[in-house]
């Protein structure tokens, strides 16, 4: 993708209010994704991740810039996108009233598979994602996580060299989440499938992604391997303190920590060099501070820290 830009006209406002300015959802985005790579787009809600993948899948025409996918110009030929990639959007409305089995099989048929092949493909994907128990039930009768899993199954049916998955594991329990990650990994290992995965889940990003682009307000603010991104924030560690009672602000050590912390209710979050963090832990685990302390955690930097250190404005990343 080169110089990709998409601006939405300002929305309507109530009479008398000042007119809304145009909203730029993607701002001059340039990314290169290698074949066979699991590439992530990480950012909070509203960062422009979905707008970006909708341009990549030919659903949305960019105002400027180019998208080249496996040698095909998708801005000039958007209808080639469905013949190169499978897309999992955030909505399941089109499949909601079908049974899981029929949703998968119909999607496979519509990706060009013959009836027999589509049926075998459906059986394989149901087995792979452990959906046999719910295969005969309509999607709308399933829990959110199971419905999402069925949609992932439909996206995986009928091989495509590129998978574009918009928050595939949203609302899933850890077992289902792991099954999806394993299925993605299997396709990459066996077929050399390229995967573009939108997420706002830090664990998912750190577990499955080869490289990740961090998006904020329509711009790519960093792009590297998860390890490389974490190296950007250096050796700072994160210290979180949760207070049961009023913290003893009379103590100079505690007052200094308060000044450096991001405070959310009774939770203080601090980013500190390792030696300062050790001193801080010593200070809060002794005397009146310890009596008022409910819990503390000390952690090495995560992609969330990277996001915040890079100037990300939202705090909408998920950490479970």
């Amino acid at each position: 993708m080169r110089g990709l830009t998409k601006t939405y006209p300002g929305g309507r406002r109530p009479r008398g209010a000042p007119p809304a300015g145009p909203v730029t959802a993607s701002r001059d985005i340039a990314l290169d994704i290698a074949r066979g790579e699991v590439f992530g787009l990480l950012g909070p809600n509203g960062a422009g991740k979905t707008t970006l993948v909708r341009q990549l899948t030919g659903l949305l025409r960019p105002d400027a810039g180019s998208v080249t996918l496996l040698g095909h110009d998708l801005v000039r030929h958007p209808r080639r996108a469905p013949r190169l990639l499978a897309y999992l959007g955030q909505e399941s409305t089109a499949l909601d009233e079908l049974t899981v089995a029929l949703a998968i099989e119909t999607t496979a048929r519509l990706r060009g598979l013959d009836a027999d092949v589509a049926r075998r493909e459906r059986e394989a994907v149901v087995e792979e994602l452990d959906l046999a128990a719910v295969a005969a039930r309509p999607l709308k009768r399933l829990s959110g996580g199971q419905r999402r899993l069925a949609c992932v199954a439909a996206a995986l049916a009928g091989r495509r060299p590129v998978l574009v998955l918009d928050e595939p594991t949203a609302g899933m329990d850890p077992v289902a989440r792991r099954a999806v990650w394993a299925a993605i990994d299997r396709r990459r290992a066996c077929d050399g499938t390229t995967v573009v995965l939108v997420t706002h889940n830090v664990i998912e990003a750190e577990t499955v992604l080869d490289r990740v682009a961090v998006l904020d307000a329509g711009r790519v603010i960093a792009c590297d391997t998860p390890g490389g991104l974490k190296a950007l924030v250096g050796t700072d560690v994160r210290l979180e303190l949760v207070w049961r009672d009023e913290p003893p602000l009379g103590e100079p050590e505690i007052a200094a920590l308060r000044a450096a912390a991001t405070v959310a209710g009774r939770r203080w979050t601090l980013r500190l060099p390792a030696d300062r963090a050790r001193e801080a832990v010593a200070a809060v685990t002794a005397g009146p501070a310890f009596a008022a302390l409910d819990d503390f955690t000390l952690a090495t930097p995560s992609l969330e820290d990277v996001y915040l250190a890079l100037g990300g404005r939202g705090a909408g990343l998920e950490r479970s």
Partner: protein
Amino acid sequence: MSAHPLAPGVGVWPALGAVYRAQLSRARVARIPLLFVATFQSIGIMILMRGVVDGGDGEEARAVVAGSAVLVVAFVALNLLAQYFGQLRAAGGLDHYATLPVPAAAVALGTAAAYASFTVPGVVVTAVAGGLLYQLPLGGLWVLLAVVPLAGAALAGLGAALGLLAPRAELATLCGQLGMSAALLLGVLPEGRLPEPVRLLRDLLPSSYGVDALAVALVPRPDWGSVVANLAVCAGVGAAALALATWAYRRAALR
């Protein structure tokens, strides 16, 4: 680096078949209660009208029965399909089909065909019940074989287009309801009793020609020329409505 070969696109007929099969199964699960509502509504209207319309093959009796039978098609194909596409579009559900290599026509036509076929049992039950209630000859009812698909195409095409073109899902629902009310009033009331402007409106409604074809067939010796002429108009309007639906689908799905 050479371009990766494209996976084959799917032809109109296999895609239409797959969409039709999926939609019909979906209709079976989710829409049977609504089909009952549609059928009972039509039978209820016929029972009400029986109080003021005499039995026998007079113009009025035939108009009531034919109008009520086609009303089932209008309820499902026009009203429910407008709601379905309105909701699908509002919720972003069209993305699913737009990222599959299928022709736009296959999705619009497959869905419309499924909704139209779903009306068949309701139409047959209504027509037979009406024929018995008003003592009409039932020999001409085989005309339903042509009336249901042709009126179904016209009304489903119109319903799909309304659902896809309406800027909001609520408006799509409203348009579907209004369309059905029009089909009810203009279809069930005998044409001869309507004032001139309303009669013009009736001529504009695609289902009227299906009603007329069926009404003509409900006499002992039908004028087959008139039946065929009405069905021909219905087919023409149906083709136009489906073309409109396909265009509306393409416009809504690919921005």
